[in-house]
């Protein structure tokens, strides 16, 4: 049961007030028409999904209705920091997650 600090309400609140909304820092391509189907598919669906440090977005649905970022360990569920939209994390994984690159299909199938 997470206890999460909302950087806008400046209080730690119960998990029930929030909803999780996915990996953070995934930027929408500036010119979607210009990118390949692979790159678009990657943006839509492919995620880093690490075991360990994860930067993710939560929505303070029952509170201030702000989205914000959380750096959380997906194994221990420890929350290292929460930070506002547009800010960058200060706690990052020692071994960085791989650069975005979709696992693509071989030709045969």
């Amino acid at each position, binding site marked *: *049961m997470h206890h999460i600090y909302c950087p806008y309400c400046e209080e730690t609140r119960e998990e029930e007030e929030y909803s999780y909304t996915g990996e953070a820092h995934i930027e929408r391509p500036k010119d979607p028409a210009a*990118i390949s*189907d692979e790159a678009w598919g990657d943006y*839509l669906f492919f995620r880093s999904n690490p075991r360990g440090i994860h930067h993710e977005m939560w929505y303070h649905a029952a509170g201030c209705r702000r989205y914000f970022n959380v750096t959380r360990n997906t194994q*221990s*569920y420890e929350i290292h920091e929460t930070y506002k939209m547009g800010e960058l994390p200060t706690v990052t994984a020692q071994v960085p997650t791989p650069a975005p690159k979709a696992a693509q299909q071989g030709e045969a199938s």
Partner: protein
Amino acid sequence: MSQVNRLATGGRIDRSKPMSFSFNGKTFQGFDGDTLASALLANGVGIVGRSFKYSRARGILGHGAEEPNALMQLHTGNAAVPNPRATQVELFDGLVSGSTNGWPSAEFDLMEWVGKIGGKFMPVGFYYKTFMAPQKMWMTYEKFIRKAAGFGKLSLEPDPDTYDKINAHCDVMVVGAGPAGLTAALEAGRSGKRVIIVDEQNEFGGTLLANNQTVDGVDAATWAEQATAQLEAMSNVLVMPRTTAFGYYDHNFVCALESRTDHIGPVSASGSRQRLHRIRAHQVILATGAIERPLVFGNNDLPGIMLANSVSTYINRYAVVPGNRCVIMTTNDSGYQTALDIQAAGRTVVAVVDSRHAPDGRLVQQAKAAGIEIMTGHGVIEAQGSKRVTGAIVAPLDAAGDTLTGPGKTLSCDLVAVAGGWSPVVHLSCHTGSRPVWQEDIAGFVPGPSIQNQHLAGAVTGDYKLSQALNAGVQAGAAAVGVESSHVFDCGDESEGAAQALYLIPHTKPISRAPKQFVDFQNDVTAAGIELAAREGFQSIEHVKRYTAMGFGTDQGKTGNVNGMAIVAKALNKSIAQTGTTIFRPAYTPVTFGALGGRDVGVLLDPARHTAMHPWHLANGAEFENVGQWKRPWYFPQQGETMQQTLNRECLAVRNSVGILDASTLGKIDIQGKDAREFLNRVYTNAWSKLAPGKCRYGLMLKEDGMIFDDGVTACLSDQHFLMTTTSGGAAAVLGWLELWHQTEWPELEVYFTSVTDQWATCSFAGPNSRKVLEKLCTDVDLSAEAMKFMDYREGTVAGIKARIFRISFTGELSFEVNVPADQGHYMWKKLMEAGEEFGITPYGTESMHVLRAEKGFIIAGQDTDGSMTPQDCLMGWAVSKTKSFSFLGERSFTRPDTARADRKQLVGLKPIDPTVVIPEGSQIVMDPNQPIPMDMMGHVTSSYWSECLGHGIAMGTVKSGSDRMGQTVYCPQADGRVLAAQICSPVFYDPKGDHHND
């Protein structure tokens, strides 16, 4: 029967309050302060149940949460409670109890013979090795297996009790009110911080209540009473007896179950039976103590074989001595205390059998001085008896306790008290993912490192001395509130000799041939079973657990696990540290479903949302439909009407005169700001740059994958002010969606969103006479066809109320929607009904609305779309702009290979060939109904109705390349064998040119 084992004096029972209770149909007497277990033992009841697999007679082993055998069936009728432990049931007058197993009774169980004979063929894992052929027979075998399933029995009637929940917050949560918990709470409480202390028992004190020691010169039990009174006097401390902390979750969230009325009667007379406390604590102190381990030897499950510490507890706390001639089997000094207690109670100690060769502790000396016979370097290798222990075979052991060094002899006895060492209660600390650590010196697991703000105190750390527990509690309490304390308690001489780590006592025969040596009593897991599992390759402790079912019982292995792990380790030639332990999961002790569900049942299961006009709908006989959380009128039947007759009447009223619909449930989002148009351009498929104030436009909203997510009409109230409508079920999701994009991607856009769903009540009235109705109530807006065109928006006064008027239509008829502040919604509705009376204004519900819109081919997002439909699939390419400079959400996905395919399923109209037929919604569509199964399915029917206005059935459905198949006949094979044929057509069945709504 008299209380043969009850002592005349002593204990914490109230002899002035006798209580009568029944067990397996017989009536007994006990006292206030008894547990069902202590009362049964007082009355000399030995057999309390039968074992699960072998139907062996079982008696009470322990005195608390660890009890594996004494599972009861309590109360009768709808109050029946299956499976509570007799050791945790407080006695009350009139309590009705019984065993959960045994046929015809627990005392004389015929299944015992099946177990005795069949048991030989039922080693662990035997199910996996047989009953395989033929496969179909398994269900038949299983029927018999299931007959033996389960312990207690549930009533078939609904539960008469209620359960509720409390959210609590504190600075310090103390789990356990034994010596360590009490001093921890006292220390923390003195700081003035908010403290909660819980204990599963009715009385605080834990081991202090059955202890002969003194605390700072005060008798232990008296000290506990004083400490409890001090805590109760602190306003910042919440003292909760009968409350079990059963789960420890992340970020110091602890769940505790408070039993509020179980000790009073079978059903709660008023208030809740149990209350779940959801506690968020800054600091948690676990003072959960330790549980004594039994030892594994032949027939060690016979009634009359008990934990030594439990025997002492029954004597000291309940004034019950559960036997006359007692053998104590011990591996450490604590067994000697039990011997002294038995002797003090006036019963015979036959011998203390100590596996150690040269014990010399303080208690050993006391026992010697008391003249108690001590057999050092010996072990009980087998118990004798059938329904109760009658003797113990004792044999000499080598120093390691591995091998017998001489012949055995039999000691006659009716009670064997077993002291096999202690297992700290590490359960809660495991719940948050911390793995327990084996500590060789105490031969037990202690809590491992944790990332929670967690402190440990007392026996849970493997330190069993009373003074240490009290002092550790002080330190934990001080640390939790950030102070220092130097208070040290004195409990006299507590010196003890070293304990021996012994789990299985060897027998003259190898394990596989020895009499059954039980490890897990509840699941009938034996040492031989564990050894067999290891032999068969189940080497991980988790495998052993799963293969043998060790630790799977309702006691979750509280007494048996460590012994089992030791036996596995030995079989594999590993250390216990290497073998490791299984993980304890919540709940520490079982928790009623009712308490976990709380009050969120019945009408409170989920909020039912109502519109301002809801009272009118109720008063006028509406049938309701659940739409999201909303209750919407489904149809308004009149006396004697079938549902179809109602729909026909409602639909014709709209087509021919005027009908009225409560459309308040549609989501409404107020959008203001300079960039509102730009924002709409990005989230909708169509263009919003040029929509003039006073105009409305329909919009489709897509997810980034290009699939329809929501739709609705948005009105331009002023140049920088829009009102968006969403589907009834989608309002919250759409608002979250808009905020997501605004806050995360486009914060530079100056736009604000505010939900106004609840602010506005919406009356939608449709039909050729709708203008006439509105004209009667609204004089300040020119409602003429020329002045107020289709998709126009005006502000005006309707029935004296400032209103927003929209000329939009979901029925294909001339139609208006009037929004008024919801406080006046009910009034507005009534005024419209009055005004419409002369035209026969007819209220209609969602079902007629569905029919009317289907006649016009309008989609319902979520019914005609399913998350896999693009606008093009719905033949709504007209609503998709190709000229917007910004690539709107979802646009890019249109050009993906699959989304761009020509043979995608498209939404088309379906006209049944037989006009009287209404094709069932959900029918699958095929081109050739005679093809063999599996058939090539082309799509399915999404919406289908009888159209009274058109005089035939109509339907919408998805069909592969549907728009290229106009005029083709498709077939819908039904489960009953009928094949319904339909012709593919435009989904617009009614007024294709739109003359009516433009009227």
